[in-house]
């Protein structure tokens, strides 16, 4: 089975800080990590490979430093990696991102299955998976929590707000994976040692056979035109004192609201 996993490198959310003066995100110096749910997608791929044989290719679009994320994926057990990196890709929305990823995936050769995370920790749109599927013209599933190879191709369970939908399609196909799918493995040092001998390809705009109006800011379908300020807060009054007093005061304020108890959340 030829499986491609899309991984995105994102800033570690625990380290993001806002400039107290301007209120904008401080972009420098934030450590980058693999988007966490992409590790679940990779784990799912490695498990499928274990059962069905084949090869796992990890792909990403990002600046040159994204090789670190790909190297980590190789250390976790992926067989090879490919990166799309070019100044022209900068400022991409999800459509331009998906066009680039689809070209990259096609560049790596024929595939049976593409796996993505359900959504990223930074942009968080959950759009890239299904958009990449549309451009690759393959059937797709989102929010997949269970998956196995079946006679017809692939069988999945999708999480929705109301319940679980089980579905099946032929291959090739694409699926976006949720956290509930598995517990991603950690790096095995013996596996990691092999990583530096694995293939890692890098492609630029030309290498992917794309033109600059298909990618990056120019190829995007949306653009950000304005940032509106967040609403002002209420500036809390701090309640201090012994825990008993605090609890009493809070309960008093709640009583003033005069709410009816709805009998709990059981």
């Amino acid at each position, binding site marked *: 089975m030829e499986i491609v996993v899309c991984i995105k490198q994102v800033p570690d959310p625990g380290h993001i800080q806002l400039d107290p003066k301007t209120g904008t995100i401080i972009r420098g110096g934030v450590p980058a990590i693999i988007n966490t749910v992409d590790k679940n997608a990779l784990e799912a791929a490695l498990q499928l490979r274990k059962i069905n044989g084949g090869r796992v290719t990890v792909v990403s679009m990002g600046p040159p430093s994204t090789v670190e994320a790909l*190297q*980590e994926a190789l*250390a976790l057990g992926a067989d090879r990696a490919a990166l799309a990196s070019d100044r022209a890709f900068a400022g991409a929305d999800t459509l331009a991102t998906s066009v680039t990823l689809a070209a990259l995936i096609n560049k790596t050769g024929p595939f049976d299955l593409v796996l993505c995370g359900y959504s990223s920790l930074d942009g968080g749109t959950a759009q890239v998976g299904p958009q990449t599927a549309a451009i690759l013209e393959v059937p797709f599933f989102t929010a997949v929590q269970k998956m196995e190879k079946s006679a017809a191709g692939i069988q999945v369970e999708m999480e929705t707000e109301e319940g679980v939908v089980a579905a099946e399609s032929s291959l090739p196909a694409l699926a976006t994976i949720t956290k509930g799918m598995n517990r991603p493995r*950690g*790096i*095995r*040092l*013996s596996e*990691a*040692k092999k*990583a*530096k001998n694995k293939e890692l390809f890098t492609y630029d705009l030309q290498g992917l056979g794309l033109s600059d109006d298909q990618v990056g800011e120019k190829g995007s379908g949306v653009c950000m035109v304005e940032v509106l300020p967040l609403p002002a807060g209420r500036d809390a009054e701090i309640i201090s004192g012994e825990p008993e007093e605090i609890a009493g005061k809070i309960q008093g304020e709640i009583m003033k609201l005069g709410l009816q108890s709805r009998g709990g959340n059981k």
Partner: protein
Amino acid sequence: MDFKFNEDQEMLSKAARSFADEFLAEYVEGIEENDEMPREVIEEAAARDFMAVTIPEEYDGLGMGHLARIILLEEISRVSAALGMLLQVWHLGIHPIVRFGSEEQKQKYLPRMAAGELLAGLAVTESTGGSDPTAVQTEAVKDGDDYILNGRKVYITSSHLSKVVGVMARMADDPKSFTIFLLDEDCPGWRAGRQEKKIGFKGSNTGDLIMEDCRVPAANIIGKIGDGLKIGLNSIGEVGRAGMAAVSLGILAASLEDAVKFSNSRVLGGKAINKNQAIQIKLADMYMDLEMSRLLAYKAATLGDEGQRCDTEMAMAKYYSSEASVRSAKAACDIHGGLGYMMETPTQRYLRDALLVISSAGTTEIQQIIVSKAAIKKYS
């Protein structure tokens, strides 16, 4: 002089950090509370090949060097010094076999140790004083092809967990001669005794190891009869001290991180406390202690990796970093105010763990003797 980690070392550091932050951290509270290392933590560490770093590749290990091992132990000890200690002594138990063992012994033990199936240890200390290994009273009497061992080791790390322990014994027929015997599952007559209750390293088991007419085949001798002191001192000098230095680095890093985080968020009189010079000086000292300890440890390890002697350098690293970790952990507690000494705050744990590093693998006084001897020799 190249102060960069190589590719393998970078990867190792990343792997160890993600294990520590993403897996181990969840267990720390429980480890402290129960004073026990959960099976699954040891199994996960083994699954990630952390037991195998120093074992040569031909025995299913990774064949990585001293520096790699320090990087690994630092990252783990940053989150749990107890697990750092457990791993450090595991590597310590492995070292005599790798360095001085016979081919047969290597085949027999190393692959299973690399896989994490056989927990290893090294037992030298007795109640007669760990600082003077020649005071060891455990005696080995020859009996046909075997030796019969009697004695009691104290303060032995993983005494109740280890499946293979290198034990230093005095030869009955030559009281000046010491030998290291490998006690394994096939040697009847050895067992764990008392289990210590320590102020720190909760979850790293320490206790007595008792040998009562313990029968050990001659094939289990490491090196030759009489090599015991040389092998024991080499193992403690190069591996034991390096390990304790690395555990200290972890405590230093954790203390600094927590101190910075807290002093950023604690606001008194309208400003964060780290806007006060008195706190800033503490942070500066803590940072320098961390960096100096790293430089000493990394240099010693690099010498070792180049095949040079590094016992004096390891002694310096162990001495400096263990004392520094106590200073730094205390400063972290102080910066937290009363909170720093409450059980809910990890800084008190750093301090308790740091105190124990000083007495393990050779006390400060012993390191001072080693370093001063080297100084006198070099500069006389």
